[in-house]
Every structure is written in structure tokens, then in C-alpha cells.
């Protein structure tokens, strides 16, 4: 499933870039993230409890940052698996200065398997949008706090 969109952040591209690469910020902003532990260069082990309405699922996996081109772009790869299935999201994030802040444009792929793929088909699109929005909302809070 393809995903794309953009989000405005109230800070400079350099600040936004740093924030997006900061594991503490990521851990705080990724919905339901319980832990993010460094296991290598730009690679983190992740435990996430995703909750949306009644649905809740525990995922364990990895977060990886790749193709870093500061402060313009980088690739964020999140993969996790749990009882309810597995998911892998890969997105290219592009940052550009806009209106005194930064526009973060993302484009990528989300792939799910297991129960959530088989029965959650019609909700994947809206769920992905909600999760991404939550991520950026939280990130935005962090940006305002720092700016």
C-alpha cells in the first residue's frame, strides 16, 4: 500500500532533521512505542504497543535510518511483528524550508501480513493515516518545545 503526504513543522529544516533522527524523539512520537534501543549504526530494536480504538497489538522489530542526506532527506524503515501479524513500512522523507518552518514530505510503502492484512483490509489506509498523523503531531509538539 502506497502512502504519501506532508506535514508542517515549526522549526528549521536542520532542527527538524535532527529531531527525526533522534531516537528519543522517535520513541516518544511513534504511537505506542515502549522502547527503542540502539543495536547498531542507525539501527534500533523496537517494542511497540499499537492501539487504535479497541484494537491493540504488540509489535517487536526494528527501526532503521538509511540514505541520510542531511538536511534534505533520509529513509525511515520500520518493521515489526507480533501475534496479530507483521508490518513493514518504508518511507522517504524530504525536508524543505517553507513559510518560516519546514515541510516534511513523505512517500513510501506500507506492507502488512497476517491477521491484520487478512481482516483489516479496508482499514489499512485510514489506520496508516491516523498513525502517521499522530506521529507528526507528537513530533510537532517536540519541535515547538525545542524551538
Amino acid at each position, binding site marked *: *500500500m502506497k502512502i504519501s*503526504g506532508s506535514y508542517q513543522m515549526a522549526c528549521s529544516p536542520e532542527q527538524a532533521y535532527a529531531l527525526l533522527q533522534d531516537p528519543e524523539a522517535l520513541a516518544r512520537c511513534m504511537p505506542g512505542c515502549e522502547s527503542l534501543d540502539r543495536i547498531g549504526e542507525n539501527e534500533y530494536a523496537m517494542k511497540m504497543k499499537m492501539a*487504535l*480504538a*479497541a*484494537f*491493540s*497489538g504488540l509489535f517487536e522489530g526494528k527501526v532503521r535510518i538509511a540514505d541520510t542526506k542531511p538536511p534534505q532527506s533520509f529513509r525511515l524503515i520500520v518493521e515489526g511483528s507480533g*501475534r*496479530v501479524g507483521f508490518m513493514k513500512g518504508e518511507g522517504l522523507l524530504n525536508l524543505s524550508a517553507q513559510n518560516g518552518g519546514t515541510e516534511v514530505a513523505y512517500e513510501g510503502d506500507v506492507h502488512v501480513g497476517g*491477521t*491484520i492484512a487478512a*481482516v*483489516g*483490509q*479496508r*482499514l*489499512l*489506509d*485510514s*489506520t496508516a*493515516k*491516523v498513525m502517521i*498523523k499522530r506521529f507528526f503531531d507528537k513530533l510537532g509538539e517536540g519541535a515547538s518545545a525545542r524551538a
Partner: protein
Amino acid sequence: MIAENFDYSAPNTVEEALQLIAKGGKVLAGGMSLVPLMKLRLAAPEHLVDLGRVAALNGITEDKGSIVIGSMTTHHQLESSALLRASCPLLAETASLIGDVQVRNMGTIGGSVAHADPAADYPAALLALEAKVRLVKSSGDRTLAFSDFLIDSFTTALEEGELVREVVVPVETAGTGVSYQKMLQPASGFAIVGVAARIRKTAGKISFARIGVTGLSSCAFRAAAVEKLLEGTSGSEEEIGKAAAVVADGVDANSDIHASSNYRSQMARVYTARAIQAAVSRAA
């Protein structure tokens, strides 16, 4: 299809229910959304608090120009209520198109609005009706406009420990034409798109238009742009078409194996026109 273990309580009063929820209990209303999730193990609440015996939450009454609907009132009760059919026909019609007979016998309006499925039917009608929701928790009540209550897919303004107590809709002004039109996903009966319309005419011109849309994007919305284009027109087929044509503008339409975002947007236009057409023809 076997859920994980859980404890179960069935309180008789709202107070008892709130106490149990404050301790971490998960509300069970009609179970039409929660129980399948539990059976698939996509949800595993430890303690279910069944509101089915809380009589105070069930019922449809009139109160000073509004209809007050208890959150545990079933879709079947809504579709068959003489009071609702007379005073708020849009909501009764919407209830009658939810799922199937079995789902309507169990599913509740409170459960539906709290769950906030992006393809649920009620939100289109409740937005068009400019409905309110009354929420209750141990520390007291509060009332929100439904448009403030519904935030996103599966996301509402409900706080921890809070329950939906009632949904409040206005008694429809005489002469208002209403309609809910829905494009069914044939397997599940959910709305690919669903449009609710309320139209009033004065001296042959549309003087009042409220349009609610569900299923198109991650959250139901009021099509304000469509409403503006309708007001002041005579409601001809051409004018309706022009107004309906903007319903999906700027909306990030959902895409799944049943409908691409392009097709869904197009169908939103078609069903908006159909809902308006039907409402106009019913407006006195």
C-alpha cells in the same frame, strides 16, 4: 476464533459502570465491533463491562425540541421508534441501513459513535443533524457537539473513564426533506460512501442545507462547500449536480480492495447528488 480470557461484569447503574471503567474495564455495548476483534485476538481487554443491563442508558425521549437517545439504544430500536421516525426521520432511516437484521438487534448508537469506524453510518447523519453527545464520568457530565467529539478514524474526544451517555438530535422542523443514501460494500455492508442530507426550502429556494459524508476518508465530515453551493438555488438537477461535484475536493479519499480513492471520490459525488435529490423531493 476464540478470544483471550477476560473477566466480565454487568452493572445495573451508570455509577457502577463508571467505577468499573475507572478500574480499567473496557466497555461492551452491542459487541458488534468489539467481539469480532476479540475473537480475532486483535483486541484483548482484561475486563469487559457490559452496559446491557443499565436501563438508564436505553431509551428515546423528547425533551424541549430535542430527541434524547440513550447510548445503549439499539439500531433496531432507532429504526422502529415511532417518535424518532416522526421527529427525526433521518436518524431512523440511517439506523435502518446499518449492517443487517442481526447486527441491528444488538448494535447500539453509543457503541457505534464511541468506536468511530470511518465507514460507520451514523456520523454522516449526526453531522448533518448538528447533533450533540453527552458524556459522563465519575467527576461529572459534559456535552460536546458531535463534530467536536469525532476526531479521526477510531479516535474520539472520550477521555479515560468516560462514557457516552446520550446522543441528542433536534426535532426536525416541519417541511425538512431528509435522506441517507449509501453505497454498500457487498461483503460487509459497510459504506463505501454514505451521504446524509437535510434540505429546507423557502419560497421555492433552498434555504437550509446540511450534508454529512462518511466512508470517503479517514473521518466523516460535513460538506460545507456543498451546502454553500446549494443555498439559494431552486434545487434543480443541474444545480444539485454542481453542488455535489465539489464534495470530494481536498479530501484524502481512502483506497482499498473494494474501491480505489478515485472511484470512491466519484461515488461520493454520485451519492451526494442522490441524497440531495431525495431530500429536495421530500422537502415541503
